[in-house]
C-alpha cells in the first residue's frame, strides 16, 4: 500500500508540475506580448 501511495504521489506531482510550468509560460509570454505591443518593436 505504501508503494501505491508513493507511486501515485510521484505521478501526480509530475502531471501537475508540468501543467503549472506550461501555465506559467503562457502567462509570461502574454505579459511580454502586452509589454512589447505597448512599447513597439525594439529591432527591425
Amino acid at each position, binding site marked *: 500500500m505504501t508503494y*501505491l501511495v508513493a507511486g501515485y504521489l510521484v505521478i501526480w506531482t*509530475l502531471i501537475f508540475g*508540468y501543467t503549472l510550468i506550461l501555465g506559467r509560460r503562457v502567462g509570461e509570454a502574454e505579459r*511580454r506580448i502586452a509589454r*512589447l505591443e505597448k512599447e513597439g518593436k525594439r529591432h527591425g
Partner: protein
Amino acid sequence: MRGLGWLAYLTVGTALLLAFLYAPPEAVMGEMVRFLYFHVGSAWVAFLAFGITALASILFLWQRRFLYDQWAAASAEIGVLFTAITLITGMFWARAVWNVWWRWEPRLTTTLILWFIFVAYLLIRSAIEDRQRRGVVAAVVGLVGFANVPLVYLASRLWGGFHPAGAHLEGRMVVALLVSVLAFTVLYGYLFLLALRVRRLEERTHHLYWGGDSF
C-alpha cells in the same frame, strides 16, 4: 480550452475514484492492481503522443509547414512525461509484486530506450536556433528513433520476458480501466493544446522582439 482543462481534471478525478474505491482488489496482485489503471492509461498516452510526433514529423518534412513542427514538439514533450510516468508506476508495481525495482525485460527496456531517444530529441530541439533547420533535424531524429523501436523490442525479447501480457480483469476493473484510458486521453488533449499555445505565444514574443520570423 479552459473548459477542456476542467473536463480533463474531472474525468481524471472520476478515474481516480473508480480505481481506488469502485474496483476490487485482484486475486494475485491484491491492492497493487490499482497501479494498473494509470499505468496502462499513461502508456497509451505516451505511445499516442510519440505516434503523433512521428506523424507530424512526416507531414513537416513533406510540406514544410511550421504548424506540424510545433505539433511534433508539443507532443514529444508530453510523450516524455507520460513515458516517465509509465516507467515510474511500473517500477513501483514491480517492487511490490516482483520484489525488484527493475528487470531487463523487453517492454521495460524498449520503453526506457524510447524515453531516452525522445529526451535526446528535446535536447537537440533546444540546441538549434534556426527554426527551419531545427524542424528538419528534429523530424529526422524522431523518425529514426521510431524506426529503432522494433529492433530494441526484438533484441530485448531475446534476453527473456516477464512483463504480464494481460491480467484477468473482472467487470468493475474493466470499467475503471476504460475510464482511466479515456481520462488520460482527455488530459493529453488538454496538455497538447496548452503546450501548443505556449509555443505560439513564445513565437509571437520572439517575433515582436526581433522582427522577422527567425524563431
